């Protein structure tokens, strides 16, 4: 995957480099033309200075001491005698033809030369000035190079600054990605970006809009489930009563009605479970959080469900300190305890033992429900919290009525109470041990 930062850095650097070199190339060429003109001007000036300053017609060589000037001069008489020359000038004519005024390029002694010829009509002589073209270019190169150097050296600095500013400019984008990445699966709250740039605003708005619509859809789905389940409560009650009436009539054998009873029972159970899963929305529950005595709720739930344990001849006991305070929603906690206790009731065989323990620790209140049932195999423990998951699928080995929502409800309610749920093997009773660790207040 391509990184915007690297992409921007590379393209910007490439552009800067290309533009710099193009302008350097153009600059180089125009500097060359300029220096050429300048050097030509120098040759011309030198020739005219010699014409005006030198009137001596005796042949000689001008020593140029230790200096190594890049220019030379020759003075020729009209009849072709070399009157004077500088130490660095050739002794022969550089041209094969008759001298004529103006600039001429010539090849001589393995070098290319630039010369200027001026005719002195007064003394009937030619003055030739010249220099080696390669030396000329060397100087021009030096001038241009010294101009290029700072520009080239600035490119890494530019790269560094681009890297930093692009990174800085992309910060809101990074913030957005981090926020999206850190979102929990069920968190559909809006995204907020500090120092919101204009370009990200539409993205943020669309994302938040999407999240909002998703959230609305979830809420609608939950509300629908809750409403549907709620509407079914009265007809289910009617079914139950009618069934009860049927069972009390003498002319139908109870065995014939048993499957019907089971069906109604199961339907009622699923409806109640769906209701308790969806009617405790975390937002709603958060508004109804109060200080509660978990022991009191446990007592009430066990007392209310006592007949179920009685009918299976199970022994249930509560071992709790009289007061264990937590912050919670009473209705939701009732539902949580009811699910744990009834799960134990269902999956523990007749004459089994169930024990509910509540203990206050330093920062937590620990609720623990243990039974002498078959427990849950380690590999199934993570999945039993999923909605509608039952160990062994629909053909649940126990053949016990259930819909696979109990532990999902326990988990859901625990989560918005900030409690941790754990499953283990009960050391004391040998069956399942469910622990729910609430933060204390």
């Amino acid at each position, binding site marked *: 995957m391509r990184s915007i930062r690297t992409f921007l850095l590379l393209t910007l650097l490439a552009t800067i480099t290309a533009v710099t070199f193009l302008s350097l190339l153009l600059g180089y060429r125009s500097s060359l033309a300029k220096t050429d003109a300048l050097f030509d001007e120098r040759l011309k000036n030198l020739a005219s200075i010699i014409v005006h300053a030198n009137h001596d017609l005796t042949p000689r060589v001008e020593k140029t001491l230790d200096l190594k000037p890049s220019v030379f001069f020759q003075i020729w008489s009209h009849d072709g005698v070399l009157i004077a020359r500088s130490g660095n000038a050739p002794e022969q004519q550089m041209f094969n033809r008759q001298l004529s005024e103006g600039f001429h390029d010539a090849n001589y002694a393995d070098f290319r030369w630039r010369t200027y010829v001026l005719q002195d009509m007064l003394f009937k002589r030619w003055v030739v000035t010249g220099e080696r073209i390669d030396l000329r270019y060397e100087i021009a190169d030096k001038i241009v190079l010294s101009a290029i150097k700072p520009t080239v050296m600035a490119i890494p600095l530019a790269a560094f600054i681009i890297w930093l500013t692009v990174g800085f400019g992309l910060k809101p984008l990074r913030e957005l990605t981090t926020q999206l990445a850190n979102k929990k699966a069920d968190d559909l709250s809006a995204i907020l970006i500090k120092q919101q740039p204009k370009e990200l605003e539409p993205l943020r708005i669309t994302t938040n809009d999407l999240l909002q619509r998703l959230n609305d859809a979830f809420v609608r789905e939950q509300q629908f489930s809750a409403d549907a389940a709620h509407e079914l409560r009265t*007809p289910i009650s009617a079914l139950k009563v009618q069934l009860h009436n049927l069972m009390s009539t003498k002319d139908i054998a109870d065995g014939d009605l048993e499957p019907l009873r089971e069906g109604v029972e199961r339907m009622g159970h699923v409806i109640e479970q769906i209701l308790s899963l969806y009617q405790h929305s975390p937002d709603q529950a958060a508004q109804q959080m109060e200080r509660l005595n978990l022991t009191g709720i446990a*007592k009430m739930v*066990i007392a209310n469900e006592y007949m179920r344990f009685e009918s299976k001849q199970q022994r249930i006991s509560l071992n709790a300190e009289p007061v264990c305070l937590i912050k919670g929603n009473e209705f939701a906690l009732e539902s949580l305890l009811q699910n744990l206790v009834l799960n134990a009731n269902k999956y523990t065989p007749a004459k089994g033992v169930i024990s509910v323990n509540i203990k206050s620790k330093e920062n937590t209140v620990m609720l623990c429900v243990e039974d002498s049932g078959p427990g849950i195999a380690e590999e199934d423990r993570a999945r039993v919290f999923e909605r509608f998951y039952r160990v062994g699928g629909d053909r649940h080995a126990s053949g016990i009525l259930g819909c696979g929502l109990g532990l999902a409800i326990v988990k859901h309610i625990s989560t918005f109470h900030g409690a941790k749920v754990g499953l283990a093997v009960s050391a004391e009773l040998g069956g399942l041990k469910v622990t729910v660790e609430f933060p204390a207040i």
Partner: protein
Amino acid sequence: MNILLVEDDVALANALVKTLTHEGFVVNHLKHGQQAINVVKTEPTDIVILDLGLPDMDGLDVLKAIRGHTAELPVLILTARSSVNDKVSGLDLGADDYLAKPFEVDELLARLRVFERRSSSSKHAGLHIGEVVLDTACYSLTVANEAVDISRREFTLLKALMENAGRVLTRESLESKLYSWGDEVASNTIEVHIHHLRKKLPKGFIKTLRGVGYIVKPV
């Protein structure tokens, strides 16, 4: 026992009328709240079973009206609403019990029996469970036709347990029946009274639910 059933769902109401009649109650069924308020004032009624979602008015308003007329008449709320708030406001307004739909028929009958027993004990008819007879008029206990001495507090405890036969009473609710607010209660008082009571009653008459409370089972 005359029961006034206020329920707008015809299927449920018809089935309930049949069940309750079969159980020996006399049932008067109404669909509207206003009718119910009028009937309570004119007809002899022992128990009201009240649905909260009625077509003409809220069940809780019906309850208010009934309580305005009489404080004695037991009212059992039967409703599809099951939030704590509904329950609390129902009980605050003077409902005697609250049962959420879908309910078990046996549970409903058990609660009606509690009303029945309460009403018979207040009419000095006494409470009978098996061979245990608690005479609420002269505060005496008879077990298998033999009179047994019983203290005032033991009597109160046993009366509560027998009236609520089939339901677990937590220690807190028993304490609240024995002592008024602000009374100092020793932590094991209830245990001590229950211990004494057990010696006077048939074996297993009062069952302990460890950590939770006590229960007397109806025969």
